[in-house]
């Protein structure tokens, strides 16, 4: 019984001791610092036909139409994010059997091919990255196959160019 009582006393002491430790606060001092406003930046990309949206004449089998598209990174002023460019092009699904899109950086045919139906999208530039203020001029070529079927007559090709700016990690 004495042992039990001693044990209880010891137990209470330990509990109190632990509680005391928890209640014992270290000293601290704090002061609010005034700092400039910090906001998150953003990354955005813009693509605009140059000099204006193409007014393409109707296309016939074996023919192509071309136009220039200027891509720029349009994120927040002061951004330092570097980026690479990835583009793709497609015509309306109903026209995809005979219509196709090819895209070059620079001039059509002689520039750097960055998209073709067979080769897919190729990241530009192949090495390094683009700076926030850089612009890239693309040449977009839409073609109709020489063996296009009669159903291609008056059919809308409705080309769509998808432009993606990927942040280039350091």
């Amino acid at each position, binding site marked *: 019984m004495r042992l039990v009582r001693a044990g209880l006393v010891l137990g209470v002491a330990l509990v109190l001791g632990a509680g005391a430790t928890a209640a014992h606060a270290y000293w601290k001092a704090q002061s609010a610092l005034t700092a400039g406003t910090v906001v998150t930046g*953003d*990354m*955005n*990309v*813009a*693509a*605009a*036909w140059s000099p204006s*949206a*193409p007014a*393409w*004449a*109707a*296309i*016939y*089998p*074996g*023919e192509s*139409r071309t*136009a220039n*598209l200027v891509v720029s*990174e349009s*994120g927040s002023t002061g951004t330092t*994010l570097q980026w690479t460019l990835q583009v793709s092009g497609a015509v309306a699904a109903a*026209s995809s059997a005979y219509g196709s899109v090819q895209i070059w950086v620079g001039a059509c045919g002689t520039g750097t091919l960055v998209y073709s139906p067979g080769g897919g999208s190729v990241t530009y530039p192949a090495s390094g990255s683009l700076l926030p203020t850089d612009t890239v001029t693309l040449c*977009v070529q*839409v073609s*109709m196959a*020489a*063996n*296009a*079927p*009669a159903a*291609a*007559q*008056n*059919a*809308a*090709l*409705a*080309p*769509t*160019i*998808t*432009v*993606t*700016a*990927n*942040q*280039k*990690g350091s």
Partner: protein
Amino acid sequence: MPRAAARPRHGGLVVTAVLAALLLGVGAPAAYGLWRATTTATATLAGGAVSTPTNLACASITSPRVARLTWNAVTGATSYTVSLVRDQNSQQMGPFTTATNTIDITSGLLGGLSGLLAGATFTATIQPVYSTSAWVGGISAPIKVQLYSVLGGMSCA
């Protein structure tokens, strides 16, 4: 012995912790995403349609003596076929192919003139050709040319 038995358990915990840390460490870069922005640009473009040559005309050229046929060019055509049918016996001559919207009908073009009498007339029609046989253009309104003389030369009828 109890200590010896506890060690493997302790070691197992350590190994588990290390593995978890490695997994988390590997997973972290995958979860860290670089920023990306996308936009699209569209344009309007439609397939053309077949047409019929219009304004087929004939002009007599005297030196050398030929019948020059001209017509309005057809958008998208890669060439034209010119068909001649002799009015007197429905004999077909040609068809002849020209890449432009004009052709000179000569006695030489008609080949063997033997059997053709001076004054024989022909009905000419034009049809545009596209790069695919699936597209068939219309046929022009007919126009007549005639053999000027047995020795050769053509003129408009």
